């Protein structure tokens, strides 16, 4: 909880982006190409957020950037199976 209190703005930013992501998906339900754009945008935002957060915290390390990239793209590829199955 101290982590949230310490970086309230950062986490609010991430949650807001997540809510925008869900709202956009909900508005454009069934539009597969747009859904993929929103998915990729949210994943890229997440990586940028990670870099920004660790720069602010003065704890940026290549290993950390790779961690964010790996998680983000693993999920993008998994979701792609649902969005573009063929």
């Amino acid at each position, binding site marked *: 909880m101290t982590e949230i209190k310490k970086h309230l703005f950062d986490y609010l930013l991430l949650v807001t982006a997540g809510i925008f992501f*869900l709202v956009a998906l909900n508005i454009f*339900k*069934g539009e597969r*190409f747009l859904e993929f754009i929103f998915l990729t945008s949210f994943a890229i935002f997440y990586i940028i957020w990670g870099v920004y957060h660790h720069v602010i915290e003065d704890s940026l390390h290549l290993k950390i950037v790779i*961690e964010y990239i790996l998680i983000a793209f693993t*999920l993008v590829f998994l979701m792609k199976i*649902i969005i573009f199955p*063929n």
Partner: protein
Amino acid sequence: MQRLKKFFFHFFIPHEENNFKARSLHPDFLGFYLILALVLTFSFKQMGLNNVLGFATDITTSKLYELTNGERHKNNLSTLTYNDKLAKAAEEKANDMFIYNYWAHYSPSGKTPWDFMITSGYAYEFAGENLAKNFLFSQGVVDAWMKSQSHRENILKKEYKEVGFAVVNGVINGEETTLVVQMFGTPSTSLATLSPPVIAAQEPAPTIGEEQAVLAKQSANKKISLPTLSFNVNIVFLSFLLAALALDFYFANKFNIIRVGGKNLAHFVFIFFMFLGLLIFSRGAIL
């Protein structure tokens, strides 16, 4: 048992031996997950292209028929009879949308849903149409229709006696699309008595009393469902990651571990939103 316990401990609980971070969240393992996701993406694509598994959705006319009548039963309405002419009209309508690249009740050339019914030889007194696209499951389609007032009214209209469905895959605006067309009708009494028995060109035509058997046959021929499999793979993988992150976060806090690494809480939030996104991806659009 002891080995399993040790493996679990090493895999999920941060401690000295795993450099104070759950092994399942180490960069090499995250890299492995990415490779696994890539392999799955291409395998599923290949299976879909080779038609090893079913196509892009798990929607079947039999399930749609069952669910539609289920909703009518809940509202004390009569069961709709499956009508092949309506199903043919629905299929023609779906094909027309693919050929002329549109997603609407009325075609750009002004063709109405009722034109397809008439062409298929269905003389109606009352008629209606519901459309859906890019859903993953039959339940999702009917749920979405029931949440929309106009579609709900169609499903629960007491005047309707018959129904026909088509689930057709194709390309609209360059996008792989699965269309569901549901057509309702009440046969025109005078013409219905004069109409000849239905004889389909490609397969034996069911009479009205045989529709359950025909629908059961369609279900029996169904292949292993690709969307169900891929959806479940996603659910399992996301749940696994969320659980690993939650355990690592909990024990790292409990033991006051300070380490170099990404923020578990941020990963958790991101994966949680992806999880919700996955549920939305399984739903499509209705019209």
